[in-house]
């Protein structure tokens, strides 16, 4: 049941206890046992890794195939390319577009996002097989066997590299079958793979800095978020101004390689160098610290509890405030910067007539700025949904780790306990969306000279995303109450689906029935769009309904 419990049979299965180490020739070095640990890790994750590789490869290759069907004529592709390159909001979300071939369009639409998904996989795998194992004490058990000091880190890196390499090789071989040129396919596949490796290196460093798995994941995800925002602002700025920002972001390097266009192979050196630097730095840091410790120190705390820590909500707040503070800081910085970039966005006029036509079709400068800001707020809502989901799912980890039990053995009832974390999740989401709106409004307003009106307008635009984000949190509550075993994978699948529908649904022309499942399809595009109260009310009603059903389920089921 517990994760620690699973390690037992796995150790036996992979023959870790066997003494076949001498044959590896690595016995007595810091790398002794690396092979065994890697096989153990690959075995533990085999299903998730295969699924991840499949989803990413199928997404990219599938899109290339769908584009061929949807845009068979050169004129159709040119129109799509003009939209993509002319609309800063789209450039912010998907990146730059080089050329209007099928390959270029595929790279534009999925270059960045396949990079993000690959990076996410790398981050979760590296942390899981380094910090998580260390925190749970499993590395201690393993470390007492004939296993070198560096073995766990190397095994974590190899385990993350395996799916990244699989994605690269599969895309490299699969994309030409969809009719794309071989050279461009190679550049796109290598770009996505190299991006995954870059984040493997970054996460290896993060896993040495923080003393907890959550902290390490937080640092790595923070870098990923910053990379997305830098790239977004740089790409949205177009040819001039802040476009240099893209060069700082590993996520932009995929498109900067210009697959299916110029194919600048040398750009691939940037992510590979990042990976190498990260790995070297991680080993240096690892040599300087003890097992279980981080480089960022752990301070002692108060010998008695403050007045705040006297009820379930106080406890939930105490447990979640650190994470929320990180999210708020990230939101404030990225949305202020992205908002500030909006001014440059509106001034862009394309060089081609097609671009200028598209510019006019979108409604001119004011409308383009609004579209860009609305895309920012959509992103704030989607990421806010991810925050709300993780905050709600804290309930599940409290339960499975046995920390719910002592609380529920007091006068605190189940519903009250669950509501404590839900309260923090809701309040945190409100705060994040308000911060996103205010920061973007300030960033844009200060440059445009209308800070007052922009802040109010953007605060409203940010909070308009709230029903959508909370509806997804309510799905997590529902699953937690009714199907606790499926709560974590189920809730994240729901978030993933909604993100996919919001970003790729319309382009891939999926049916309206599918689009309408996503709460963000019902959310108004603000600023600039029109607001109708009805869908928002329905969303709120659904969120409350799901939560009530989930809490009723929680009252009836077994805990633990």
């Amino acid at each position, binding site marked *: 049941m517990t994760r620690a419990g699973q390690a037992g049979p796995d150790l036996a299965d992979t023959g870790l206890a066997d003494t076949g180490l001498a044959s590896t020739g690595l016995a007595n070095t810091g790398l002794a046992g690396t092979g065994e640990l890697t096989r153990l890790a690959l075995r533990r994750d085999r299903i998730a890794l295969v699924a991840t590789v499949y989803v990413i490869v199928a997404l990219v290759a599938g899109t290339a195939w769908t584009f061929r069907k949807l845009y068979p004529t050169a004129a159709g592709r040119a129109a799509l390319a003009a939209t993509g390159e002319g609309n800063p909001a789209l450039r912010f979300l998907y990146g730059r577009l080089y050329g209007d071939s099928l390959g270029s369009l595929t790279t534009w639409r999925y270059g960045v996002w396949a990079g993000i998904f690959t990076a996410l996989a790398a981050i979760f795998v590296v942390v899981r097989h380094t910090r998580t194992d260390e925190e749970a004490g499993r590395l201690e058990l393993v470390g007492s066997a004939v296993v070198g000091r560096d073995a766990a880190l190397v095994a974590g890196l190899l385990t993350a590299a395996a799916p990244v390499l699989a994605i690269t090789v599969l895309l490299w071989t699969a994309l030409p079958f969809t009719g794309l040129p071989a050279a461009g396919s190679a550049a796109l596949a290598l770009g996505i793979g190299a991006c995954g490796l870059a984040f493997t290196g970054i996460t290896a460093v993060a896993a040495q800095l923080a003393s907890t798995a959550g902290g390490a994941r937080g640092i790595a995800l923070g870098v990923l978020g910053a990379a997305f925002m830098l790239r977004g602002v740089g790409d949205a700025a177009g040819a001039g101004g802040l476009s240099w920002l893209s060069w700082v972001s590993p996520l932009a390097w995929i498109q900067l390689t210009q697959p299916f266009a110029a194919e600048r192979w040398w750009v691939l050196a940037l992510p590979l160098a990042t990976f190498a630097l990260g790995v070297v730095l991680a080993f240096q840091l690892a040599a300087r610290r003890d097992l279980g410790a981080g480089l960022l120190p752990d301070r*002692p705390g*108060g010998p*008695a*509890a403050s007045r705040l820590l006297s009820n379930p909500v106080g406890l939930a707040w105490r447990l979640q405030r650190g994470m929320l503070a990180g999210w708020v800081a990230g939101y404030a910085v990225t949305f202020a910067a992205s908002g500030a970039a909006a001014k440059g966005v509106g001034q862009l006029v394309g060089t081609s007539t097609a671009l200028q036509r598209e510019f006019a079709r979108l409604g001119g400068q004011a409308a383009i700025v609004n579209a860009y800001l609305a895309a920012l707020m959509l992103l704030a809502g989607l990421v806010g949904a991810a925050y709300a989901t993780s905050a709600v799912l804290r309930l599940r980890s409290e339960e499975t780790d*046995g920390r719910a*039990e*002592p609380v529920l*053995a007091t006068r*605190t009832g189940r519903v009250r306990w669950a509501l404590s974390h839900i309260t923090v999740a809701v309040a945190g989401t409100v705060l994040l969306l308000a911060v996103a709106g205010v920061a973007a409004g300030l960033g844009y307003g200060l440059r445009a000279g209308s800070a007052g009106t922009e802040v109010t307008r953007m605060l409203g635009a940010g909070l308009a995303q709230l029903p959508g984000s909370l509806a997804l949190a309510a799905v997590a509550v529902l699953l937690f109450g009714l199907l606790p075993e499926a709560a974590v994978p189920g809730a994240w699948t729901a978030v993933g689906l909604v993100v996919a529908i919001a970003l790729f649904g319309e382009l891939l022309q999926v049916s309206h029935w599918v689009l309408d499942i996503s709460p963000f399809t019902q959310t108004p595009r603000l600023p600039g769009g029109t607001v109708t109260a009805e869908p928002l009310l329905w969303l709120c009603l659904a969120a409350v309904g799901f939560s009530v059903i989930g809490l009723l389920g929680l009252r009836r089921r077994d805990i633990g």
Partner: protein
Amino acid sequence: MANAIEARALRKSFGRTRALDGLDLTVRTGEVHAFLGPNGAGKTTTIRILLGLLNKDGGEAVLLGGDPWRDATTLHARLAYVPGDVTLWPSLTGGEIIDLLARLRGRRDGIDAKRRQALIERFDLDPSKKARAYSKGNRQKVALVAALASDAELLLLDEPTAGLDPLMEASFRECVNAERHDGRTILLSSHILSEAEALADRVTIIRDGQAVETGTLAEMRHLTRNFVDADLAAPVSLEGVPGVHDLDVQDSRVRCQVDHAALGDVLALLTSAGVRSLTCRPPTLEELFLRHYSTERVGLGARS
């Protein structure tokens, strides 16, 4: 109210595994009751049902006069619980957790500061350390201090001394004895027999989800055989004497097990032959315990 805990024919299954199969358990108010059984016998499942964390599949359970599932929150104000596998919030200090649990139990003002301090000193606990820095034993101490410092009338302790060093185990025993004098009821699940033997007024032994033996240690010994080891002046034949088992005669040395009822007759026989030395002792709890768990020793079945 005579009984703090009254469970009848409790049943609970997890999928195809039957954890409890008609378990009976009675804990009288004011007693220290040891709940004995090997790992996986169903001790923790029983306690979790009594706490209302699990819903029983069948049978009856009454805790402090209420229904543990329906009245969970009101009952919890009157009890304190130490889980078998103590996991704490890594970012909170031990002191914070002790205060938090006391307040969640319903005391607005926290806990008796003097008592808290005395217990922290007795268990030699550093309350300002973050929980992630605690060893298993120290985590156990935090949970114990939180429970013992409360004024709950019932303590549910699930293997409370697992992970404690012998010194701390002694401190724990002193505390439990002090609680007994205060009139608190304690249910102590354990597989450490010496602990149960030293502390418990009554014992329930469970196996495969059923209570196989319950009563005071004296009562339980009464039902079983005594071990007799005698050195005799003249040989005596115990062969065929009713109530004598596992007879082992080597010259003048006689060793055997004797049913409680036959003890008087056997001793009379022995003394008539002339006794040079004699040891006659009741079974230890360990022997009682093993009797229920080793299949080879079925022949010892004394309940017949």
